[in-house]
């Protein structure tokens, strides 16, 4: 895997934690020693508009942007955003939507973003310890437990849809 670049696109609406989720993913990859790039357009994100974030990691990453048709994984926090971002997925790429986790069973619904990272993590060659390290670093101490639970729930959860 070390020669291959893994492309993940995260999408949602402003306020859903898309950028936080991509921060955690990028940090988890960074912790394994891989090259990582993360790119996003966020100028209007606080006004409820669409937000997407691209995370790419591997031995050497060049462009910070995922090209349409080349995403290995598309993680969508808001189902309506799947249509606008599906063209990023490569043939056979994996779409992960909120259906991948039991939202009602999360300790806090705000941690949907982290639960979906848990679902994504099942596919990625990143050790659990690095994910948890990224979560610990990425959130204030009092929110770590809720986020760890959400992550592990997503990681243990049902299979995501294949496209």
């Amino acid at each position, binding site marked *: 895997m070390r020669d291959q670049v893994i492309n993940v696109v995260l999408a949602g609406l402003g306020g859903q934690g898309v950028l936080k989720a991509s921060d955690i993913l990028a*940090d988890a990859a*960074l912790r394994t020693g891989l*090259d990582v790039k993360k*790119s*996003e357009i966020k*100028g209007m994100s606080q006004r409820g508009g*669409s937000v997407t974030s691209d995370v790419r990691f591997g031995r050497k990453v060049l462009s*910070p942007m995922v*090209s349409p048709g080349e995403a290995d994984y598309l993680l969508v926090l808001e189902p309506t955003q799947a249509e606008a971002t599906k*063209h990023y997925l490569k043939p056979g790429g994996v779409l992960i939507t909120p259906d991948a986790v039991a939202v009602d069973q999360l300790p806090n619904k705000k941690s949907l973003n982290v639960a979906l990272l848990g679902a994504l993590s099942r596919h990625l060659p990143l050790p659990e310890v690095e994910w948890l390290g990224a979560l610990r670093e990425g959130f204030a101490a009092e929110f770590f437990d809720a986020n760890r639970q959400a992550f592990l729930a997503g990681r243990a959860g049902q299979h995501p849809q294949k496209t």
Partner: protein
Amino acid sequence: MPSPKRQLLSGDEAIALAARHAGVALGAGYPGTPSTEILERFSELGGYGQWSPNEKVALEVAIGAAFGGARALATMKHVGLNVAADPLFTVAYTGVRGGLVVVSADDPGMASSQNEQDNRHYAVAAGVPMLEPGDSQEAYDFLLAAFEISERWNLPVILRATTRVCHSYTVMQPRSPNGPPKAPKFERDIRARVMIPANARPAHKRLRQKLTEIAEWNETCSLNCVTPGDNQLGIITSGISFMHAREAAPEASVLKLGFTHPLPIKKIAAFVKSVKRCIVIEEGDPYLVEAIRAAGIQVEGKAEIYRFGELNVPRVRRILNNDASPEPAAPPGKPPQLCDACQYRLVFEVLRQRDCIVAGDIGCYTLGVLKPFEAMDSCVCMGASLGVGLGLRHVLPPEQARRVVSVIGDSTFVHSGISGLVEMVYNPPADGHVLIILDNGTTAMTGHQEHPGTGRKLGHEPTNKLVVEDLARSLGVKRVHVVEPRLGSNEFERILDECLASRELCVIIARRPCILIIKRLRELEHCECETKEAPCATK
């Protein structure tokens, strides 16, 4: 094993870190996407960073610091450099003593801007050196290099970044911080710094002489580097386009230009000679390709359609394949909108109901142009609502002129609306005019930065407060109203109707804090109360 110093930083954060490591004594700017985070981070890292009323003042403050021998940084978005262009062109003549770097953060593709001007032209027009980083490591390294270049030739240097460089997070490693910079000290140099014509004429010649020397020095500068490859295809590129080009054509030989004004023409000529086909891959205007061709070097450029918007790997592949066929349109996302509880919704509803002709301005409230309001008729640049509204008032037939209002936010008003208000008082239209200042107590669009009207500085610490209504009255405006637009109250409507009917000069300040900062305001106010008795423990 990764080095402990490996960090994943945005380009903006890397510039801020480099500014600290370069010993920058003062950073000044005005918030603007994608440049805003530079000064915020610089301040968090312990640097002295400040928001100025606008980019012109910010650059002038930075020039003063550099005249005093300190290293200074001015940050702005691309259109901000239009505002700061006046001092830029002449500080190129005066030169500086301490290093001076101007960060221009361009926005190709207009993620959050009113145009996609390519500020590389400013380096040529003003005659200043320019560096273009392509990732966070380069943003860091190039800022350090920019200060060295600035001090070596006593010239301001432009660090030209773009949205994808500013806002992409890439892995970088800082170098050891430099030793402490020289202590600021005033050294009189009247002929260099007082630009009366007698001094400016030789200064212009000095500038061109410096540029000739710099161009020669740039021929061997390590900021321009060749990635060797197949000699069938050569690519000349700069900034983020380098990353796209390397990915689109991994086999190609690539000359990456980091120091892009004045250009190393001999190095470029040698590279072009070394490959069979040579093509220039650059985002925005055909700056490099035209300069290279003007030097008599034959290179291919891109089709006109690639002047518009950002480049990415697929677009670079198309350029390399000479494919100028129409590109597939991306599916539309959900556009941003005024927040549900935003006080401006009411204002725009009222303006729509009255069929006002609205000269608008730059900020969140520009979203008043979208459905369901569609209550904005123009938006040109920061502060233009005043002048444009007044011009309309002067020429339209009376029944239309009387419906014209200018709408501007508080931060934008301070930035460049004040001189428009002076214009309103100085050249009043026959039927008066109505200015509405939407005062939400923050620079909301760019992420809630302070400004002179909030009474708080960049780090939210208290300072003197500009009182907009006092300013308007002192300029001679008789009708100045302050009103809180609220659901269930028709006070705003009533005052607006009165003002529209008065045919006098009116300023309505619609004041209510942005709902997104109410929590922060409470904390700050609480903190300020506490500090009167004891030091505050919270940040």
